[in-house]
């Protein structure tokens, strides 16, 4: 029992969503299939179902993120839940309250679910571990560790456009070292049976022993993109330019920025993804971002359906 996956209850059902690591393929597919049904809901007159009526969902954002917070808020509202947005970076934490005190206070207000974004890896795990039974926790990004709903919406997008996972070559391109998105993507891709996952990045932006995650490493775009079906771009954070990681954004764009020329090395029907927000002219050229192979805007739409699916699966789970 000691090593039991904290995301699963005693019936091996999803209790919290903290990471895509060690989640069985059956659960990933259950989330993707449920999300398919929610895509239809968002195309109706009334874009709302009464499933989570009376449930209280708290968005706990210890790190600012308007976009992710908004998609969780839209998803919760389309399920008829009551949503409370707490921007904790500027309230209790600045008064010296500990993370668990904050969470216990909110739990005392009869919360049913916490959506947690935190700069520290493991914050969502900590909250899940200490939350009273019946409360569900969704990790909306913790430090460099995980961002499971982003990875799931990426898997959903891939399945929508490529239909299968078992015959794909997928490349993740950019700052793998600092990216919680990349880690969650790699775990989800390998669990769903993608036979070849590549990472393409300069040596300074790759974690040590990244091969252990089951990926092939490339430092060069031209060879790395050969025969690729899916390109998953990562956001290059501006602060990385100032340290020792990279000489300049111009230099990065020259070597790793996705231009139409570099994209032509991949398969002609390859799709291009990006978790947003994009740095145009740094990791991606506008001609690609807005081009025919880009599926970046569908990713945003599917992100709402995925979050609706995760919330409704969790909320329906008995303790």
């Amino acid at each position, binding site marked *: 029992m000691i090593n039991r996956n904290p995301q699963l209850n005693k019936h091996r059902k999803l209790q919290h969503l903290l990471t895509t690591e060690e989640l069985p393929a059956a659960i990933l597919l259950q989330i993707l299939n449920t999300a*398919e049904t929610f895509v239809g809901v968002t195309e109706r007159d009334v874009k709302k179902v009464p499933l989570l009526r009376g449930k209280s969902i708290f968005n706990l954002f210890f790190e600012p993120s308007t976009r992710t917070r908004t998609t969780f808020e839209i998803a919760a509202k389309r399920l008829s839940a009551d949503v409370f947005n707490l921007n904790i970076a500027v309230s209790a934490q600045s008064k010296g309250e500990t993370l668990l005190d904050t969470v216990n206070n909110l739990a005392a207000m009869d919360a049913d679910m916490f959506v947690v974004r935190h700069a520290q890896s493991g914050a969502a795990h900590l909250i899940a571990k200490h939350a009273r039974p019946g409360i569900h926790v969704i990790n909306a990004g913790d430090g460099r560790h995980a961002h499971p709903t982003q990875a799931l919406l990426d898997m959903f997008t891939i399945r929508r456009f490529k239909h299968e996972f078992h015959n794909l070559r997928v490349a993740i391109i950019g700052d793998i070292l600092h990216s919680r998105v990349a880690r969650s993507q790699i775990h989800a891709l390998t669990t769903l049976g993608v036979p070849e996952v590549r990472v393409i990045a300069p040596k300074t932006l790759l974690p040590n022993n990244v091969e252990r995650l089951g990926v092939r490493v490339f430092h060069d775009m031209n060879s790395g993109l050969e025969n690729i079906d899916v390109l998953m771009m990562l956001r290059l954070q501006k602060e990385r330019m100032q340290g020792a990681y990279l000489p300049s954004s111009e230099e990065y764009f020259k070597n790793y920025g996705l231009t139409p020329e570099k994209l032509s090395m991949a398969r002609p029907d390859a799709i291009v993804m990006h978790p947003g927000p994009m740095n145009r002219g740094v990791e991606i050229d506008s001609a690609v971002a807005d081009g025919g192979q880009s599926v970046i805007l569908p990713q945003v739409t599917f992100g709402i359906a995925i979050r609706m699916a995760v919330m409704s699966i969790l909320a329906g789970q008995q303790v």
Partner: protein
Amino acid sequence: MRNIPLPDAEILLNQLLDQIQADSDNNYTALVGIHTGGAWLAERLHQALSATRSLEPLGLLSVSFYRDDFDRVGLHAQVRPSEIPFNVNGAHILLVDDVLQTGRTIRAAINELFDYGRPASIALATLIDRGGRELPICAQYIGAGLRLPAESILVFDRDVQGRFNLRLENKKGVVNGAEDMPA
């Protein structure tokens, strides 16, 4: 419970179809089946009725997101999408389900339909009405009424040839019907 005779589902479907066709007052323009059994029935009814009148493409409802027992049983592991391929506003809809009992599924289906628009009318056709209503809901067209023990589960199924059948189960498994075996 072993010896309750069950009617032939194919014969009931023909009776249901006859009733619908014999009713000169009906003015529905669209059929909507409720997953899973109701959808199979609606498919067959749609095919037969399309021969004599013009109908909208067949609609399917899942009602998973409208059930009132979500807090007790959670979300079904295999949720299917609802598909309503016509404009619900102003439509006369015939809703189709396999077994009518408490009426809770029909309540959920009506609520879901209203989230697609405002239908002009909704009528209900069911293969079996087994009583036990918990809501003020009734069917306009009924294949047959059956009195069954409250704890029994009436299962409507389709075999590999596409033929419909009925069987009675309790929590231990099949007790009557197509695959009769001891309880």
